[in-house]
């Protein structure tokens, strides 16, 4: 089937390895949105974003304009925290925005500062993104030197300041309240909501937290118009979206596409199908915390509603594809190890539950488990739906849910394979890992090895 090409508005330079610095960004029409925003009132700006239907691109998919309107009137100072702590396994879409078009993000931040009547923003970049932090800092310095940022932003008399702040390797800091405690200089422990950050956030002041990609959409909405943004629509999801595709497809990468594209088209058309034309085993559609999807159920649109209709969630739009060489029990072990390591330790159900799940899963994978273990595991992990099992819905933040859902859905989807492991006392996939066959670890090379992002 021919691949339908769409415009690339967020990352037209996705195939390039060069950063678009201020001069090139302005030559391509950059900072026109900010000039337009300076002529508008905050209410007008919030309404434009509301009308566009823009929803958060970080995972929860909350309408951005509505989030902004939760700020209490007149309460100052207020802050903007930019969530660049992209840590959900499978997700690698914010890094290209920061590394390739840093000024798009800066423009989006300043427009949003105007909309929420704030003067100070911090970009919280995960510690592993050394290069993205360097590029962002250089771009922020450029913007200060050009008078775009500072005490008199673009000569408007308004203040706009951006601080580039680095995390230090904690997954939990992508959770919004945890990000704020980390930004305050403490352990990244999440806080109970309410009060929501829009009422009491950073240093106890009203704070808005938005994802990098969300803010990068704002200048596009202002220059190209609400109608353009809404022309890409699936149910209540509007605009173009960056998908990170990883795993056993022929062309992994970051793809900018409308949300009407289906999972089947994504895997078989855009990504070229499964490596070496293997069989598809399962797909994780929205980062490692989302529920697993089987190959007989791929005809859904990659929108918030579309993925929900298939029984999973779009999350951060990180699609991981697994071919028939992957043992689902082993994949569940790997996922649960991640959450066990990254649980902050504050809430008992999550701290202990993630460790229980990991230990039981390891026992099933390595032999020595009994059918009773399977019962315990189901008891702890639930069935992949919210508020089932002993973890989901019982912790302060959503990490507990994120840890339980994939395990619960793995059990539901591949129950027979878990039972087979227990009966055999070993993993039947061992020694079947194709990439180990000739002593090399990637003996089946992809047909096309892109620099990340390139997919032409």
């Amino acid at each position, binding site marked *: 089937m021919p691949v339908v090409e769409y415009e690339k508005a967020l990352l037209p330079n996705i195939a390039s390895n060069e950063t678009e610095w201020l001069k090139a960004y302005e030559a391509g029409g950059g900072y026109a949105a900010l000039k337009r925003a300076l002529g508008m009132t905050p209410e007008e700006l919030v309404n434009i974003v509301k009308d566009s239907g823009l929803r958060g691109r970080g995972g929860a998919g909350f309408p951005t304009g509505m989030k902004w309107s939760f700020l209490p009137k007149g309460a100052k100072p207020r802050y903007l925290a930019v969530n660049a702590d992209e840590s959900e396994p499978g997700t*690698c879409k914010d890094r290209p925005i920061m590394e390739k078009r840093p000024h798009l993000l800066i423009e989006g931040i300043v427009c949003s500062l105007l909309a929420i009547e704030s003067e100070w923003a911090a970009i919280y970049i995960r510690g592993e993104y050394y*290069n993205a932090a360097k590029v962002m800092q250089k771009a922020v310095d450029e913007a200060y030197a050009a008078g775009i940022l500072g005490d008199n932003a673009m000569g408007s008399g308004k203040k706009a300041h951006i*601080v580039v702040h680095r995390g230090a390797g904690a997954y939990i800091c992508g959770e919004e309240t945890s990000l704020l405690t980390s*930004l305050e*200089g403490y352990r990244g422990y999440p806080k109970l909501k309410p009060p929501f950050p829009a009422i009491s956030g950073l240093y106890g002041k009203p704070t808005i937290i938005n994802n990098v990609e969300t803010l990068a959409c704002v200048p596009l909405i202002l220059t190209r118009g609400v109608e353009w943004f809404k022309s890409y629509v699936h149910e209540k999801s509007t605009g173009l979206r960056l998908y990170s595709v990883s795993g056993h497809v022929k062309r*992994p990468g970051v793809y900018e596409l409308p949300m009407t594209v289906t999972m089947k088209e994504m895997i078989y058309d855009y990504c070229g199908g499964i490596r070496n034309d293997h069989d598809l085993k399962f797909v*994780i559609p929205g980062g490692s915390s989302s529920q697993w999807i089987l190959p007989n159920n791929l005809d859904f649109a990659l929108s918030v509603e579309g993925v929900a209709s298939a029984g999973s969630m779009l999350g951060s739009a990180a699609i991981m594809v697994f071919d028939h060489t992957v043992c689902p029990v082993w994949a569940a072990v790997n*996922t649960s190890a991640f959450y066990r390591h990254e649980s902050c330790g504050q809430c008992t159900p999550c701290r202990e539950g993630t460790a229980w799940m990991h230990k039981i899963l390891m026992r099933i994978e390595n032999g020595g488990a009994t059918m009773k273990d399977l019962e315990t595991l189901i008891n702890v992990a639930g069935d992949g739906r919210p508020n089932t099992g002993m973890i989901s819905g019982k912790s302060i933040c959503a990490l507990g849910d994120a840890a339980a859902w994939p395990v619960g859905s793995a059990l539901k989807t591949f129950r027979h394979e878990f039972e087979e492991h227990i009966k055999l006392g070993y993993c039947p996939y061992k020694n079947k890992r194709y990439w*180990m066959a000739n002593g090399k670890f990637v003996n089946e090379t992809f047909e096309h090895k892109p620099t990340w992002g390139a997919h032409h």
Partner: protein
Amino acid sequence: MPVLAHRRDEIERLCAKYPSRRSALLPLLWMVQEQEGWVSQDSMREVADIIGCTAAEVYEVVSFYTMYNQKPTGRHHIQLCHTLACAICGSAEAGEYIKNKYGFTHGKSMSDDGRFSIVEVECIGACSNAPAMLVGETLYGDLTPESIDSILGAHA
């Protein structure tokens, strides 16, 4: 032995960027680590004096964030991803290859000449270029035995 004494102006500029001085704690620890390669208990006390909190509070933060090294590392610190997307594309085998090449075993994560140290980490956000690793501050993806040879060979 104070390590930040000569950078006081830079530190004051950094602290002034934030509405609260305490926010500069993580950046200060990064400053120490980038200069020294790791964060010693002495430097934690120094950072505590700069921020105006106790050394225990600084240690509490250091021990929470996995990227602060509490022990010296090799000249080039390798952070190899072993989370799902990398794992299904051969990160375990890449790890074996590196470990065999430089003699890393359980309990020995630094090469004898102090050139390399290694740690397996959770997702580093390079999932569509799996398997991936960080050497120092540079990200390398799409690892193969050949590319590992040439990448690590270039780090003296």
